[in-house]
């Protein structure tokens, strides 16, 4: 009988390993973000639609925000958008949009069509700033604390679970939104 239990035991050990692997995969990125805990990269970018108005990273320090990297050509962003809208509507935290390698007209049209929940939208036409943030593709989001440090990076769409598990707890630590 004991001999016959060997396969089950071996398998359960394997199951444990795989479960641990999943936990890791949950937070794993192919290239782990080295920016967590550090100040967000420096940048000075124009506001979307108002190219003469520049915003620098320093101006964003003080109140926490979620930097949401999006673009009009990004299909997944469209899927993510209602979640972002809900987040902004809840007042939990302000959402700043980083319009990534997009054309202004397309970006404005997209916002007009799908809604604009962003407290502010800055345009990164060349994508240089996004590279500094370590952005691979869209959508990606960065949670920035009141001191301007990146505390969390979401690769891919923000989901209600991500908000519940990653954003809400951290915001509660700092006190409420905008």
């Amino acid at each position, binding site marked *: *009988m004991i001999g016959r239990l060997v396969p089950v035991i071996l398998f359960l050990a394997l199951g444990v390993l795989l479960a641990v692997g999943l936990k890791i*995969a949950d937070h794993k990125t192919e290239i782990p973000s080295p920016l967590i805990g550090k100040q967000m990269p420096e940048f000075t970018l124009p506001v979307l639609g108002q190219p003469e108005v520049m915003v620098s990273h320093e101006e964003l320090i003080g109140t926490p925000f979620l930097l949401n990297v999006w673009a009009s050509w990004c299909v997944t962003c469209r*899927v993510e958008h209602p979640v972002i809208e809900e987040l902004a509507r809840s007042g939990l935290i302000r959402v700043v949009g980083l319009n990534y390698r997009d054309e202004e007209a397309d970006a404005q049209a997209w916002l007009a069509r799908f809604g604009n929940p962003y407290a502010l939208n800055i345009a990164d036409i060349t994508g240089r700033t996004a590279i500094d943030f370590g952005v691979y593709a869209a959508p990606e989001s960065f949670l920035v604390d009141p001191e301007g440090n990146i505390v969390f990076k979401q690769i891919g769409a923000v989901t209600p*679970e991500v908000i519940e598990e990653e954003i809400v707890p951290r915001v509660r630590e700092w006190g409420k939104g905008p």
Partner: protein
Amino acid sequence: MLPELGQIALIGALLISLTMGTLPLIGASNGNQKLMRVGQTGAIAQFFLIAFSFVILTWAFVVQDFSVEYVARNSNSLLPMQYRFSAVWGSHEGSLLLWELILCLWTFAVAIFSKKLPDDFRARTLAVLGWISAGFLLFVIFTSNPFGRLIPQAVDGLDLNPLLQDPGLIIHPPMLYMGYVGFSVSFAFAVAALLGQQVTREWVRWSRPWTHVAWAFLTLGIALGSWWAYYELGWGGWWFWDPVENASFMPWIIGTALIHSQAVTEKRGTFRNWTLILAITAFSLCLLGTFLVRSGVLTSVHAFASDPTRGVFILTYLVVVVGGSLLLFAIRAPGMVQGSNFAGLSRETLILLNNLLLVVMAAMVLTGTLYPLLLDALDAGKISVGPPYFGTLFALLLIPLAVLLPFGFYARWQEDSLKRLLGELRVPAFAALVGGVATYFLLPTAGGWGVAGVAGAFWIMASCLRYYRERMTANPGQRPGRGETGMIIAHFGVGLFLVGASLTNPVSSEKHLRMVAGDSFELAGYNFVFEGTRGVRGPNYVADEGEFIVYKSGKRVTSLYPQKRRYSNGQVMTEAALDPGLTRDLYVGLGEALNEQGTAWAVRLYHKPFIRFIWIGALLMMAGGFLAATDRRYRRPVSQKAETRPTDANLAEAPA
């Protein structure tokens, strides 16, 4: 409207599969015919609902309904019609629906072709298949619904990944899944036998043809994948020990061991527990493979988009199905069979050795595939295991396997003499010597492994031919049936595969270089002349097409037109040009333009001898498997008696 109907069909199928999973089990345990029959009606109903669902998804692709998010992600208005069909399984959600469809197809087949099985056994088998289906449907409906809408709908789709826009990718996944999912049938048979305590020789006889067919399809699927990777990826390789490849190879190895173990159990009554465990393990590895490639646990250039939430679901499913069946095995597995002992030198021993070697091989591949995960879990760093680990170990294990193979052929059941066996093997040994020596002198670059591989291959092939000839000259009543002929063909295929696998890497030549129009380069006796490039258009791409003319000894052999394509979604892809041949392939790939004008190009030239042998060998294995499944003895009516002890009458069944 239609996509919503597809979704409803999925839910309907789920309800049916749950019913199929429970009622027949109850019926089997108290002999209620009506409840048992629910298994069959359920199988038929489920199949039609899932087929309907699949057709709806296909239709959405064909008419390019970009309001369905899955279609928008995987298709494009310029996508040619044939790829609209294969785009259905282009990524996660659709490929899962294909998995489910094929599972229902197999279940349907079991329901239809099992009239001769005892009712309770059939009921239990279908019930197990019903549970497997239910789990998958839950997964699809709750985490991977292909019918989700994209509102507002996309103007145009993202396009199917250009790597998948290829005839090979049209048939590779369906064939692979036919094999992969097909092992669920031997699994269901094993669990049903354990549940009903009917682990008999008859049980094995019933499950053998199903196992053969599944194994043959899996062989085909893997061979197609290898062939596709070779010509599509453009780097001349045919196997990369990538986690996704390993995920399909491990079940194949265990499936091979299973077939051998079933042979012994059917003919001799022993190895019952081996057969049970192998049947459970084969399908478990299939589920494990599905988990590995979709959960994000392993990184691979092949893997689907990683999604840990999906991973949790599959892992739970895996633990329930595999853990449950292994537990059932621990509790219900039959005790040792009295009698039917076998000597140290006998067919049984050789097959046992064969299975041990195969299990070690599978364990080795599994270890290498999961090791990065283990180290990551222990926080010991992010690593990957290089292909040489797999390659070297695989080659080392192949040596005893290849050497012992002909012994297995000729050895008698129960007891044999070494002297007699060695006598039979004189001719194959001589053939091996000839093969090895010929390779050594004719192909100096083959190296030690090449020579040994060819010698081993000749050893195997010669014994197959000799064995076949002997058996064909026996008395008419004792000539080999399809089962035996299939076996011989399959083993011959192993030999052929071995020739290709041993020779192609050491003996191939390749060259990466810069070429302008008019340049030529001589590789392995072939002269490649570059005539320049021109622009061409395809249905959803534009390309630079190069022209290469190949000469040998002054005579023109072929013209090759490799392309560098730019698809409508921006993705760039190389389409290598191939001149296939039985003894060698010639292969040219365009790299990138090295100057602004596009007159100088980075080019890859390849001469690959014997590479076709690999796939032809695999196809022979597949053919042998299919042929063996059609053996008449599997269609004999089945006795309702419980376990028969081996008697002299049974022993006489075995050949030679």
